[in-house]
């Protein structure tokens, strides 16, 4: 009994010694997070495969060969071919290039623009914030898809116009998020303290306000990439998106659709699975980021 009593005391003093030793240096925050790691690994593998597509397939994704149409899986064609004899594996890899690129760009731009607009709207008083927020109300009063489709229709098909259309519509939630966060933040003492130190409003906004509110927008952006991917694929599926010779997942689904009744599922199912995997990876990253960034509050 006396022996067991001694152990915790010794342990405690050891721990105390450890604290004293490391106390002078700032503690390292824990960055590792299982969800982020899993999500990044999944997304990383997919992204690498897409980037290094020429190394993983020798086929041209647009090369047609009607003699080889509708082949099943074989060593020559890993996932078979479609009705025009194009290699599905190659189309899958090259198709991701434009889809993922546009999806990510169409998140990054609204994230930056929306966050800045929201911070401005929250930080200042007066006419400018009112204009920003009423304009946001105006944009969000239209159904999201309808507005995107109309814009793509006006701007014409293709990756660039999809990017512009999505960016023009999806800055609204970022603006709302960052305005709300800024309204809370601007009454905090350290913002007053910054002003008291003689910093200009612009400096306070970019150096202190935006870094403090950015995390919410970034977490939202992760799920927004998934939404954008969905929009791009949907538009292409309806023939409004990427122009046909360029391979694209939505178009692949559309191409395969007519064979579903005949019992050929792979043409439609394969791109769907890839999109689900990407969505899953981004959800993991988003959840993980939300957890990590929450700690700071």
């Amino acid at each position, binding site marked *: 009994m006396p022996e067991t009593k001694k152990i915790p005391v010794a342990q405690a003093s050891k721990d105390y010694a450890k604290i004293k030793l490391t106390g002078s240096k700032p503690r390292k925050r824990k960055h590792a997070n299982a969800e982020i790691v899993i999500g990044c690994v999944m997304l990383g593998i997919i992204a690498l495969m897409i980037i290094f597509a020429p190394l993983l397939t020798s086929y041209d994704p647009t090369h047609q060969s009607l003699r080889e149409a509708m082949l099943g899986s074989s060593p020559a064609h890993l996932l078979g071919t479609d009705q025009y004899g194009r290699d599905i594996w190659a189309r899958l890899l090259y198709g991701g290039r434009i889809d993922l690129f546009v999806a990510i760009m169409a998140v990054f731009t609204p994230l930056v623009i929306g966050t800045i607009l929201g911070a401005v709207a929250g930080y200042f008083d007066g006419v400018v914030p009112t204009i920003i927020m009423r304009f946001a109300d105006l944009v969000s009063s239209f159904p999201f898809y309808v507005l995107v489709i109309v814009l793509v229709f006006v701007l014409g098909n293709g990756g660039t116009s999809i990017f512009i259309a999505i960016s023009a519509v999806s800055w609204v939630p970022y603006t709302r998020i960052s305005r709300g966060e800024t309204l809370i933040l601007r009454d905090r003492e350290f913002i*007053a303290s910054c*002003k008291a130190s003689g*910093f200009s409003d612009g400096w306070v906004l970019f150096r202190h306000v935006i870094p403090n509110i950015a995390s919410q927008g970034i977490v939202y952006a992760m799920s927004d990439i998934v939404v954008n991917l969905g929009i791009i694929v949907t538009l292409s599926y309806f023939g409004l998106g990427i122009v046909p010779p360029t391979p694209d997942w939505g178009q692949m689904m559309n191409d395969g659709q007519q064979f579903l009744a005949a019992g050929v599922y792979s043409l439609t199912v394969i791109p769907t699975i890839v999109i689900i995997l990407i969505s899953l990876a981004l959800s993991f990253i988003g959840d993980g980021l939300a957890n990590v960034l929450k700690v700071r509050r």
Partner: protein
Amino acid sequence: MTAATTAKTTTEPDYEYALEIVDLCIDVDKHGERVPAVKNLTIRVRPGESHGLVGESGSGKSLTLRAVMGLFSKGAYYRSGYIKICGKEVLGPNAPDYDPSMRGKGVAMAFQEPAVALNPIMKVGWQIVDALREQEHLSRAEARKRAIELMDSVGITNPEDRFDAYPFELSGGMRQRVMIAASIACKPKVLLCDEPTTALDVTIQEQILKIFRSIADSGTALLYVTHDLAVVSQLCETLSVIYHGEIVEEGTLRKVFDTPEDDYTRQLLSSTPYLKGRMRAAGSDTVRKGE
């Protein structure tokens, strides 16, 4: 009014008072009506002097301090009077919207709660460096060196390591030191203190007060707002007692503590009974910390 007519005898600077608040009136919104919260408040602080502004919660002392800094919270409005820092009118008939040009180098402020007065996601060293770079236009390396010197001067041990710490990694006392370091970074002529020791325990409080003492000794005018008479007795030479937005008593520490004229001051002093007795017994201008 009378002070304005007195001839200037000092020749070095072109102002006698580093901080001059004259007949300041501030209104606040209360249930949709504007009511006066600070009434004809006059405080003058000379360079190197530390002046205590004592009053209870809601008496208008923080409002006054923030007016000097130009930080009006929602629902507070300047009405009349003027505030001069180093002879320059920052708030008054000629500058009704507050002139921020004196912020930083002319006037700085140490806040009550350092936990919220520092940016939570910025390394503390950079918060000092920023102030230096903005006002003194130093290079990054120079500013870093100065920041570390400043941190050392306010009693932060291992300033080089602490430079890269985030505010949440520091103790309350350390955070307060960082904030003081940031506020004196540009050698302000006037330092406003909004109860900077209230959130700290007594031993740390004494160390922080020593730092303020040395800041005042270096020629900075200190306006120290608090409800704690013990702190005032340790730090200040002169004090004003504020009650419901009005100065009810002012004078040297000795005069106010020994021969209070106003009823409220007497009540305030008697609410901390040991102080008055000790003042008489010690017969000095400062009270040592009670055993």
